[in-house]
């Protein structure tokens, strides 16, 4: 079905007739518009595209896309999407999930979809809160967070979603945020182009239960000094006129430095294609809180065989070797005997 001539689509073709029901001001709107704006550029057909989600505010996403879609169960979207992608490698399969959905109840499925490198584009809407259930802390909520379920402050150590993905050796790992449509589109474009599992963390504002969670990094005032834009092959620099940069110390630690003090040549050159995920992991751990400079962009993008294709290849190889399945022969494969009339 992928060979058919794809009609040119416009953004409108990707918008379903369903009324969007997120709270006014929710960051999910920005992400949805970025996705819908990107889709026509990808040269794919709406009918060959599938959005699978779990449960949460973010997981309502498929209802708003004029594609095939399934709003499945809490945490299980990567598993359901694996079934779709393995059964039908010809399809473009996207997963939309939340921080609770992907990293709490569905953590197991997420890491295994990444490990298998299923051809999925996974968009994790990280608002550091449980939105749909009205404001409990999530596995990405910072320690000390006061929510309905943590009136004395959360004592849980949070997950860094990128560390989790890199720990699972995901072949594509990136981060973007809901306030920058252009950045989102460029990251989603690269994620889609990557064959295998692509994992994108999107900082998403829940203005009702966790408002301004990322303001200290992505807020208009803060951006310049707090957002580190990773560009493959370029020295990692940020801040006004790129006065700051990232170096690796002799102890192997990444540090933020003044470029003027160390010289440009000392800066770490970003290499998203490094086979070893160690450096990407170190970059993902560069910021430990919401008040320190945080890298965005593509951390890792390495080629690796995608699972659905490999499963399909085994089917093809078996058929080539044994010929198409013959039921009559199968029933006789264990040895038979005749009972005469």
């Amino acid at each position, binding site marked *: 079905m992928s060979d058919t001539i794809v009609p040119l689509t416009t953004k409108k073709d990707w918008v379903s007739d369903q009324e969007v029901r997120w709270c006014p001001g929710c960051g999910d709107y920005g992400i949805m518009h970025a996705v819908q704006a990107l889709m026509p550029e990808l040269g794919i057909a709406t*009918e060959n595209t599938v959005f699978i989600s779990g449960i949460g505010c973010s997981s309502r996403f498929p209802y708003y896309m004029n594609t095939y879609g399934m709003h499945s169960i809490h945490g299980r979207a990567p598993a*359901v999407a694996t*079934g779709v992608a*393995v059964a039908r490698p010809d399809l473009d399969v996207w997963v939309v999930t939340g921080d609770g959905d992907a990293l709490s109840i569905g953590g*197991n499925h997420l890491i295994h979809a990444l490990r298998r490198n299923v051809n999925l584009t996974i968009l994790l809407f990280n608002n550091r809160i449980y939105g749909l259930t009205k404001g409990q802390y999530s596995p990405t909520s910072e320690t000390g967070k006061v929510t309905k379920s943590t009136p004395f402050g959360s004592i849980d150590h949070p997950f860094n979603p990128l560390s989790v993905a890199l720990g699972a050796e995901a072949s594509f790992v990136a981060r973007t945020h809901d306030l920058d449509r252009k950045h989102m589109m460029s990251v989603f474009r690269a994620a889609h182009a990557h064959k295998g599992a692509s994992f994108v963390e999107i900082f998403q504002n829940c203005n009702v239960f966790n408002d301004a969670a990322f303001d200290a990094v992505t807020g208009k005032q803060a951006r310049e000094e707090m957002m580190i834009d990773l560009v493959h092959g370029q020295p990692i620099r940020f801040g006004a006129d790129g006065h700051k940069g990232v170096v690796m110390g002799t102890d192997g630690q990444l540090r933020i430095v003044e470029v003027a003090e160390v010289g440009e040549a000392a800066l770490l050159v970003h290499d998203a294609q490094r086979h070893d995920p160690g450096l990407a992991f170190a970059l993902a751990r560069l910021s430990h809180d919401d008040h320190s400079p945080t890298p965005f962009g593509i951390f890792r993008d390495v080629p690796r065989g995608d699972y659905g294709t490999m499963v399909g290849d085994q*089917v093809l190889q078996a058929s080539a070797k044994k010929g198409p399945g013959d039921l009559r022969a*199968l029933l006789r494969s264990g040895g038979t005997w005749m009972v005469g009339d």
Partner: protein
Amino acid sequence: MTDTHSFTEEERQAGEPEQISHVVVRFAGDSGDGMQLTGDRFTSVSALFGNDLSTFPDYPAEIRAPAGTVNGVSSFQVHISDHDITTPGDAPNVLVAMNPAALKADLHRLEQNGLLIVNSDAFEGRDLEKAGYDHNPLHDDFLAAYRVVEVPMTSLTQLATEPLGVKPRDAERSKNFFALGLVSWLYSRPIEPTIEWIGSRFKDLVKESNLAALKAGFNYGETSELFDHPYQVKPAKLPAGEYTNITGNVALAWGLIAAGQLAKLPIFLGSYPITPASDILHELSKHKHFGVRTVQAEDEIAAAGMALGAAFAGHLGITTTSGPGVALKSETTSLAISLELPFVLVDIQRGGPSTGLPTKTEAADLNIAMYGRHGEAPLPIVAAYSPAQCFDAAIEACRIALKYRTPVILLSDGFLANGSEPWLLPDVATLPDISTPFQTEPNHVAADGTAEYWPYLRDPETLARPWAIPGTPGLQHRVGGIEKQDGTGNIDYSPANHSKMVHLRQAKIDGIANDIPLATITGDADADVCLLGWGSTWAAIDAAVQRTRRAGTKVAWIHITHVNPLPPNLGELLKSFKTVLVPELNMGQLCRIVRANYLVDAKPVTKVQGLPFTSAELEKAIQEAIMQGAGS
């Protein structure tokens, strides 16, 4: 051993085998002794010989339970016969005990005056102790009630393999072939097929050692004069045709493959290993050239989710498991009910709750199959009743799932899964066409005249919704677990709509009753007592009913393969009997359903020992019911 009367003194002198109608042999030893393999070989050869047969592998949950202990005993019981049989036999006529623990574990099963063949080498110090004997049972009259034949199998195997250069310790590992050779001689089984099999399965010194042991055992039977003559069970007069010997799990896996072919759909299996279901995953994984895709998922939830995703994408989505996995798949199965997509969940039941008895049989998952989901979540349940019939049951489960766009639970159990019987191969050409078309065109016209696709616009007869798969232009749609409006499929939480959808989902499942075979009565329709069975109790009920009727007592039997919905005439049939007995390997789960559905005073006959019913147990239950009925 019965039916010896036709044997003359001359024949005995001539060393001719004595003809017997059937025999039940039980091989018992340590888990490391290869008893499953021994039993399996004996079975295969008997099958090739043309006997009817039924097997019952019985092994511990531990891969390597402490050697020599009762917990580590692994047994294989096989019933071979010259006539139609269904059970692996109540009490073995022959017990082969490779060590004291095996004797301890299985002696109580052996019939009175039964033949007990023991590996006498193993009845010493530590081995006796580990088995919990404070005496040597071979040295006193402990075994007086049996015909004991002591064979020093370990040392005889060592002697036979020594010329090959096999170390005594290694020779130990061939002693099961010695036992097999001996029993093969005793029951006049040819050893050539096993020689061939050993040749293909083992290499080098191990192969030579096993061959030497097998032949030594066979020759020992002939020359030792321990037995005055061999026996023979003639081929059974089964219906004419081509047969294979098959276990329930393999038959079930082949049934799923057949279903894919008959539905013209690729198969997708999502599964997570669990005893006793894993063999279906193994078997399906072998047959990729049938277009079978298998994924060993990270857990049962994922396995079910993957199968459901594949179903959404247009494959025949299947997931296989046992009780603990069924619990984990519950939420996904509910979603499948809400999505109204075809989906088959295979449950190979074992003893529960929790880990329970992983390697032992039980049929106590009927409740979870019926009720183990949240909300009003009905689904069809198909139950297999014999190893070979697992093939048909699998096709039937897939047929219903596809036609009605619904998850179906297919119940089998450990007894069927590992047990085997001869199977008269069906003519592939006569298997039913279970294909069901995908939706390819819009099915509704909007008010403004545009053609559109309504994912929940139902077939008025089956109430099934259309199945439009990704890749189909113009039919893009979203499905989800949130309550939806009938027809459009749009989210709809309104009270009237929810009520309508709950009723529709129920009506769809209830309606399947008109698309399944009516219940039929086996035996005496005018009897006072009727047995109602489902699942693997079939074998024991069949034997018990036959014996009861041969003894001149009337009894009726209804066996159902569709547990939900039940055959539409079942209530009426049951009401025509004074007494209804429901034998089940649980605490009376079907019994409660029929009592509730039909207000029939059905009585449970239960067994929860991790073992199938014996036919004697059921015969007794029938007798008691008849006596009670007569007294009232």
